[in-house]
């Protein structure tokens, strides 16, 4: 669906995006992660045909972004991180206006507007002025606006920023529904646990460069080169640490009170042996588990806090 090849954007001496290359498959949700100033918004604006790259190319469904912006706009729905609304328009009029701007005939627009308002749960607000909506409702309305022309690719820049937990949950459910409807989604967010639960693919960007990308599992594997073992004991943590250090597959052991954490490269047989050894030595083990992949940990691990 999306191919980015050597994309670079420079503002004078500042390089906002530096030789960025990645691909996004159809019907996937690609989480674009990075610290502030990493180049996420710049990349998304280039893909939405709102910025011309200094060099490099990008194709959306085969159409080159800079070569055929009109066609690309038809294929993409863009939701910026900060956006305004026309406060003198009603909710229905707002969507109708954008529908007309995408060249949808008046006869079809009414049905599309109704469907979209149902989708984002704003049908009851149809006759209200846009300005009277809450932030969460405006975010949903803007998402509906980006869908008005039925694009194949959604480019969503921080769609959940500033939303309360319930509104974030609703937004997440909405995006999953859109994915189920066959949309490909690129989404940037700072709320990493949310992305981890939603995205099929992740790209971590820092200082304009893509540090790592792939499926969440691939990225986890690339970064950690193994699994993380978490063992909680009732007491005798120091003794347990000494015992663990003698075990095969454990690289180093960190003790944090009653919790022992250790990166583990062995197989399940080794894992079973470790537990047997601990219990056999009389260590009071409360829990013995493998920690789930945590995008936040990965993010902290691969980024260095470099900001352009």
């Amino acid at each position, binding site marked *: *669906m999306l*191919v980015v*090849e050597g994309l670079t954007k420079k503002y004078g001496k500042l390089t906002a995006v530096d030789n960025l290359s990645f691909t996004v498959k*159809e019907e996937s949700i690609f989480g674009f992660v990075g610290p502030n100033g990493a180049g996420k918004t710049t990349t998304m*604006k280039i893909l*939405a*045909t*709102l*910025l*011309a790259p200094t060099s490099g*190319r990008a*194709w959306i*469904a*085969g159409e*080159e*972004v*800079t*070569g055929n*912006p*009109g066609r690309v*706009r*038809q*294929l*993409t729905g*863009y939701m*910026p991180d*900060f*956006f*305004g*609304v*026309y406060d*003198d*328009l009603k909710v229905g*009029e707002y969507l109708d*206006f*954008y529908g*007309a*701007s*995408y*060249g949808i005939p008046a006869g079809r627009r009414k049905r599309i507007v109704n469907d979209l308002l149902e989708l984002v749960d704003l049908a009851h607000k149809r006759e209200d002025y846009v300005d009277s909506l809450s932030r969460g409702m405006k975010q949903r309305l803007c998402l509906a*606006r980006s869908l008005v*022309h039925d694009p*194949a690719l959604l480019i969503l820049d921080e769609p959940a920023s500033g939303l309360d937990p319930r509104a974030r949950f609703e937004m997440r459910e909405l995006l999953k529904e859109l994915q189920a409807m*066959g949309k490909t989604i690129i989404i940037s967010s700072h709320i990493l646990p949310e992305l981890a639960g939603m995205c099929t693919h992740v790209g971590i960007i820092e200082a304009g460069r893509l540090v790592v990308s792939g499926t969440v599992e691939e990225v986890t594997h690339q970064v950690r080169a193994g699994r993380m073992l978490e063992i909680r004991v009732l007491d005798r943590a120091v003794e347990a640490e000494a015992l663990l250090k003698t075990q095969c597959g454990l690289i180093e052991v960190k003790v944090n009170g009653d919790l022992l954490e250790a990166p583990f490269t062995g197989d399940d047989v080794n894992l079973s042996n470790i537990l047997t050894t601990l219990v056999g030595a009389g260590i009071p083990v409360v829990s013995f588990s493998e920690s789930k992949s945590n995008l936040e940990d990965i993010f902290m691990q691969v980024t260095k806090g470099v900001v352009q």
Partner: protein
Amino acid sequence: MRGIILNPVLGKEFRSRMRTWKSPLVISIYLGVLSLITLGYYWTRQGPITYTGFGPEVGPQMYVMLAVFQLLLVSFVTPAFTAGVISGERERQTLDLLVCTRLSATSIVLSKLLASVSYILLLVVASLPVFGAVYFFGGVRLSEIGQVFVVYLMTALTFGAVGVFCSTVFKRTQVSVVITYIIVFFFLIGTAAVAVFMASISMRSGSYPSTPFIAYLNPVVALFSTFPGQLGQGLFLREFQFIFGGPVPVGVPPGSGGAALPSVGLQPWQYNFIGDAVIIVVLLGISIQLITPVGRFSWVKRIRHRKRMPVTVEIGTADARERHAD
């Protein structure tokens, strides 16, 4: 062209402008000011001629006064309506959303200009009853009023284009409005001042003062050149003729104040329209290019290098196209 005229931006602008109480208020104030000027003039003329009635020059003079005053009002109002059309979208953070639709930059810019100028024309049309009072006194033909209204249209379009251009160049509306007013002020006063200066230099050098072209950019000059010769005498037609030469007071009989000056072929209002047309095309052209984020001068780029997508990607692309078409 139909797409440009009947596009959603134009419809939205009309709806937004006419939806609030501001529009009727602006029209009321505008007509109120024009009516007060007309009544004021009527009262000043009425005092000394209570028993003898009005002279034949009263109607034409009232017409000239109204026409000039309305031109100044149009010049004053136009920047207020146009100097924020693009910068306002930028400040509201709606410009990106508009640009990434299928609407072309040309369509957006022209719609914004047409919406603003249409509203100004509404003000001008609404003033027709005030102009109707001139008929009460006689001395002015409908075609002459029509000509004056064309000058208003060109002036509104020109100053509107200046406003749109400034709102595209400057990010903040306040700055755009100020700069637009400065430029409009230059058109109204600056061109006249420069023309006088150039004419005086020309006279000092002993040669006959010819009309500097910059004078024709002044809408007041264009307006005066549409008045029949006998109109406005005693106001400032002769002064204008002295400054600008040429056939400014069209139809002034020989010997009555400068009609002996050589004709320059086209009328000043015709020169003015040509100058205005050039300004409008250039400023709108630049504005369109400035708000086109990607694909500026795309036809040049297309000729220079035809880029192809990597073959491996093209395979997936065909599928994607089919899927999207479905």
